[in-house]
């Protein structure tokens, strides 16, 4: 059975009682109905939190850029300008919705759906904690690669359907950049899959530990390089600066969403910000230990047996600790992403392709072979375990 948020709740007595009650009332087995309701509520919470993260992302972006450029940034709406994104949202929904006369109406309307749908579908497997992840699919990482490629189609269609030269150029560039950088991302993920032996996020995270030396990031030299390759390529896949060529303001006006106004534009922006969060979350889950809490603080037997917390609160507390661990690392990476954006200048198109095909792809292929060799030669032990074994054997030799 795949573990999911439903199987987490299904262990709790109230849930089982509710299922039994519903079955009694409705006259048929209502476990599917109950699972649907639970999934629906959990997805609703996740989507709203993610929309909030997307909104706060725009705020954080402006505030951090202001900080780096010694400006004040938004500070009028709410305390410290925190409600700026709400004001922006209200403004967006009040804007007129314009579809250009020469545009391809069907594709113009459907393009944001591909972007937003692809990004939302990735949220289903994003591992917030061992219990509160929506679902731990057996093919987690691979599924994520598949649905996130819908974003590329959405960006291309957004550029194509507008029938504007800026949009078309931005869309072509965006699609070719996204597909190019998918190669190093895939190869870096295979590097981790070789070491973890599973595609499911819970297994990949379960094999890591809470402390930095147990993470795949510091597992061996190849994964260390692989992390940086993954991070750079993921930046490019989400069209973040210094790889924001599809929407380069100084060259292409606004790129693939030049002709989009109001809410349609907001959906493209929302999809982009959520995708950055998802990508940071995936980097955390694959390389930085995911939701693992140091010293097994979140485990049930520690909280329940050692500290004496009752069963139900102990379970919740453990999950909250795990979510805290995951979100802290993800936000830290998110900060790095914004920091990079306001620090580095934009690349040229040819530099972009050179970086992808002539540096990142060969390096990630090398990493892949290296990780396979490490697995074959050292049985997948981390470099620290090997060192400890070495010192032990030397010490034992006396």
């Amino acid at each position: 059975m795949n573990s999911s948020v439903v199987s987490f709740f299904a262990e709790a007595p109230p849930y089982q009682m509710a299922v039994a009650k519903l079955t009694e009332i409705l006259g048929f087995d209502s476990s599917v109905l109950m699972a649907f309701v639970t999934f629906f509520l959990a997805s609703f919470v996740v989507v709203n939190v993610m929309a909030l993260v997307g909104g706060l992302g725009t705020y954080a972006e402006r505030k951090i850029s202001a900080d780096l450029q010694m400006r004040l940034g938004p500070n009028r709406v709410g305390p410290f300008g925190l409600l700026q994104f709400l004001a922006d949202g209200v403004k967006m929904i009040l804007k007129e919705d314009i579809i250009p006369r020469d545009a391809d109406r069907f594709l113009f309307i459907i393009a944001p759906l591909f972007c937003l749908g692809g990004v939302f579908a990735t949220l289903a497997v994003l591992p917030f904690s061992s219990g509160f992840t929506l679902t731990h699919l057996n093919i987690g990482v691979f599924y994520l690669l598949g649905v996130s490629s819908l974003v590329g189609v959405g960006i291309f269609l957004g550029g194509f359907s507008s029938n504007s030269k800026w949009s078309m150029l931005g869309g072509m560039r965006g699609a070719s950049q996204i597909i190019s950088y998918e190669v190093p991302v895939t190869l870096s993920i295979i590097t981790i899959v070789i070491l973890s032996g599973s595609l499911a996020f819970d297994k990949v995270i379960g094999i890591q530990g809470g402390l930095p030396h147990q993470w795949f990031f510091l597992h061996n030299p190849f994964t260390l390089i692989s992390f940086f390759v993954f991070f750079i390529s993921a930046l490019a896949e989400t069209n973040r600066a210094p790889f924001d060529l599809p929407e380069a303001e100084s060259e292409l006006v606004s790129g693939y969403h030049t002709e989009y106004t109001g809410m349609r534009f907001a959906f493209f922006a929302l999809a982009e910000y959520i995708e950055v969060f998802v990508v940071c979350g995936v980097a955390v889950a694959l390389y930085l230990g995911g939701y693992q809490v140091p010293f097994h603080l979140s485990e049930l037997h520690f909280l329940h047996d050692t500290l004496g917390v009752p069963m139900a609160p102990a379970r919740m507390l453990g999950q909250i600790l795990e979510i805290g661990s995951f979100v802290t690392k993800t936000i830290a990476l998110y900060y790095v992403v914004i920091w990079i954006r306001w620090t580095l200048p934009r690349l040229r198109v040819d530099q972009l392709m050179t970086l992808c095909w002539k540096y990142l792809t060969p390096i990630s292929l090398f990493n892949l072979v290296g990780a396979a060799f490490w697995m074959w030669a050292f049985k997948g032990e981390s470099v620290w375990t090997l060192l400890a074994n070495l010192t032990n054997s030397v010490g034992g030799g006396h």
Partner: protein
Amino acid sequence: MTAYNLNAYMPVIILVGFAIIMIVGALIVGRFIRPHNPSDLKETVYECGEAPMGVAWSNFHVRFYVLALVFIIFDVEGALMFPVAVIFRKFNEIGSGSAVFVSLLLFIGVLLAGLVYCWSKGDLDWVKSYTQQSFNEERDEKKLA
């Protein structure tokens, strides 16, 4: 081999449904509260203030296609490598990791040969990809033929 219930895929459907509801809902709600007075000028595409010339759906350069071509081959090979990568650890533990390692190496070797070929022929360059030399070579080939 672990059994599972198809309910595990429920969130995917629900989340995509949310995306559709958000897009449709926001546009329908917005229809009642936002202005709608289109004019001829508003509906033209933006071309820095000039009247747009022609349509944007024009011919693009072939280099886009060549890169997409290299990409799709790598994509497919990556998809094929995933199951082998998954079982590598298990095979290694039962002592037959060498066979998997060799087959993986062979696979990556062929992949690398393709990359090296495209690199040497200049397919991976963006701007100066087709240098004078390759043009000359091609012209010579034509003369010979």
